[in-house]
């Protein structure tokens, strides 16, 4: 009986997959999502490499020696450089802020840049400021070689400190990835969810469900449907994550090498959890309608929590930071699929919180599947006016 049941569910799931895979809209959406991911990875890498000539200011010290240092740093980092002698640090800062200069070498003491780089995301020689600090440090080392310097070098290395005029981006790549994850999770859950609602509504409105349910139990039809859709969603998620990781490594994207990868993986996990939690609910919504045209409206109440989490994500990622309300949303199964990856992106969620939120989501998924299954089973064959959830739960099939 169980193998028979599995076979029936497989048949239903296969039909769903064939049905969707035949729809042009599915492939158009898939391609658009993949192109968006590819663009997000490749475009920053391209713009970084396209900087033709960097203007580097020098302040104090001997101009010839500093020019030599800048040229050497340019060679090391693979950047063409133009040296701009400047009267003082104040002028240098002004021109840095305006974007006129890429970096300023201040004598043999430090390197100034507009924005403090993120520590540890790339090797010092890979960027012009990094190379400047390296080479400048070496020059200084050669100039003074008293034994005391050896101890300092042993303790602190040879690089000069790099000081930014404005605070560091605190994982800008991670935040951008977090926003992209929030958008994709929101879009995919809503797309597939509404698709399920419409599919169930279509079966009910066209009355084909009456034929299907002579051989299928409602729960088998429901399971086949959400599994079939889930396989498609999973394939789409896997393709996007793979594109992110493979392209990112290919172009040496800082986002892939840095903390953003953890955001992508968390995003993929909560996308799965979110789909599992919502899919049966969307099916139950579809079972309540009686006309095809009601399908979209029936799904709207289920869209609202994710819309809330999505809209508030902007405030967390760009403005005020994580407040307690958003932190709570990351543990509520309705909003966690978007809220938790956003918390991961800003580094506000330790591992135990991820585990706890995932556990809550899984437990809630079981409860939701039971409730939605009951609603679906009782409502799917009832025609007449549109049904209300409470009315359905009180009645028998």
């Amino acid at each position: 009986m169980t193998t028979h049941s599995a076979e029936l569910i497989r048949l239903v799931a296969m039909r769903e997959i064939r049905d969707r895979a035949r729809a042009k809209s599915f492939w158009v959406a898939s391609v658009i999502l993949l192109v968006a991911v590819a663009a997000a990875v490749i475009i920053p890498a391209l713009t970084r490499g396209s900087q033709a000539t960097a203007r580097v200011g020098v302040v104090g010290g001997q101009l010839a020696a500093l020019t030599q240092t800048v040229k050497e740093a340019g060679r090391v980092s693979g950047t063409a450089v133009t040296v701009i002698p400047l009267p003082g640090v104040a002028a240098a800062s002004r021109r840095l802020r305006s974007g006129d200069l890429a970096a300023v070498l201040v004598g043999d003491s430090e390197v100034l840049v507009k924005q403090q780089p993120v520590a540890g995301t790339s090797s010092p020689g890979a960027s012009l400021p990094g190379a400047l600090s390296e080479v400048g440090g070496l020059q200084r080392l050669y100039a003074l070689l008293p034994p005391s310097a050896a101890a300092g070098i042993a303790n602190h290395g040879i690089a000069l400190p790099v000081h930014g005029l404005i605070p560091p981006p605190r994982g800008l790549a991670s935040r951008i990835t977090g926003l992209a994850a929030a958008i994709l999770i929101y879009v995919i859950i809503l797309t597939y969810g509404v698709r399920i609602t419409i599919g169930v509504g279509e079966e009910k409105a066209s009355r084909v469900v009456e034929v299907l349910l002579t051989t299928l139990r409602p729960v088998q039809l429901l399971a086949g449907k959400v599994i079939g859709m889930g396989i498609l969603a999973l394939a789409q998620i896997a393709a996007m994550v793979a594109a992110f990781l493979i392209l990112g490594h290919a172009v040496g994207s800082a986002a892939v090498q840095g903390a953003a990868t953890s955001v992508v993986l968390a995003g993929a996990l909560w996308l799965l959890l979110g789909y599992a939690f919502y899919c049966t609910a969307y099916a139950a919504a579809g079972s309540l309608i009686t006309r095809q045209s009601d399908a979209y409206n029936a799904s709207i109440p289920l869209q609202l929590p994710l819309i809330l989490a999505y809209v508030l994500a902007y405030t967390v990622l760009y403005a005020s930071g994580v407040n307690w309300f958003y932190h709570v949303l990351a543990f509520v199964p309705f909003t966690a699929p978007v809220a938790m990856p956003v918390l991961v992106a800003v580094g506000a969620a330790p591992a135990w919180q991820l585990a706890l939120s995932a556990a809550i989501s899984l437990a809630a998924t079981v409860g939701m599947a039971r409730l939605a299954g009951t609603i679906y089973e009782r409502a799917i064959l009832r025609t007449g006016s549109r049904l209300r959830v409470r009315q359905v739960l009180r009645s028998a099939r």
Partner: protein
Amino acid sequence: MQPGGQQAAPGASGMLELDGLRRRYGDVTALDGLSFAVPPGQVFGFLGPNGAGKTTAMRAIVGVASLDGGEVRWRGAPIGQEIRRRIGYMPEERGLYPAMRVLEQLEYLARLHGLTAAQARAAALSWTERLGLADQGQAKIEALSLGNQQRVQLAAALAHGPELLVLDEPFSGLDPAGVDAMSQVLAERAAAGVTMLFSSHQLDLVEHLCQSVAIINRGQLVAGGAVKDLGQAGKLRITVRVAGDDAGRWAQDLGGAASVENNTGGAVLLALRNRADAQAVLDRARAAGPVEHFTFERRKLSEVFRDAVGSAADPEADAEAGRGAGAEGGSRA
């Protein structure tokens, strides 16, 4: 093609039994202790006014409506999911995936009924061929005419080689050619030993096609049995025509032996008190002139129906049970 076709309990082979079925939808009683049995190998008609509970009963047989009480048995055993795979069902409100292609749809439904992919393919092809849909195999359902959609629906009910056919209004919406094709298929399936229950409002058609009927009203059985027996029950009637007497004056005073029910251009329909009075009436007719026509009339099924259902067949009762139950009425064209 007929998985599990082996005989079960002796004496119960192919017998469908409805036993005391009860179902209420809110204030509406759809089934009120409905009981009857459908023997195998017959075309069996299921009649009743709108809202009588036919659709609810049929949905209960195939398991898409639950019962408050009573039991449906097939070969003596309650119907479960395993047995339902061997039922062919045609719902009153037709149900097919609008955007799915004909063959694909038939194959899918046949596979849900337990056929292998190859069997399902073969059955879909042979039934589309048989029902004149061979050219439409790759067409989407929504692109077909209503009549052809109906044929696909029948093919869907038949493709898995069911032992029991439950067809709700299979003739509604069919053109005369479609009616003939459908009648032929039903007669042939019955001859092949399939047990069959179909509902219809086309009483003349049912009379012509069915060996037996069950007539229900307000969720209860009100008449049933072989069509020829039902036609002979009740008052005996004769039609007599006397040449030259278009007004039927000869029949005006027949005493208590017979009473005139109708006169169409001299063909006088008479209800007799008993069979023996027929000869006396004939004698009176011959005395009045040459008798051109003399027949015993069997009651038509429509009369049996009207007698059995009585005044309850008024339209108000229909609308009521159609709602809520989602059972009857709706988009019957």
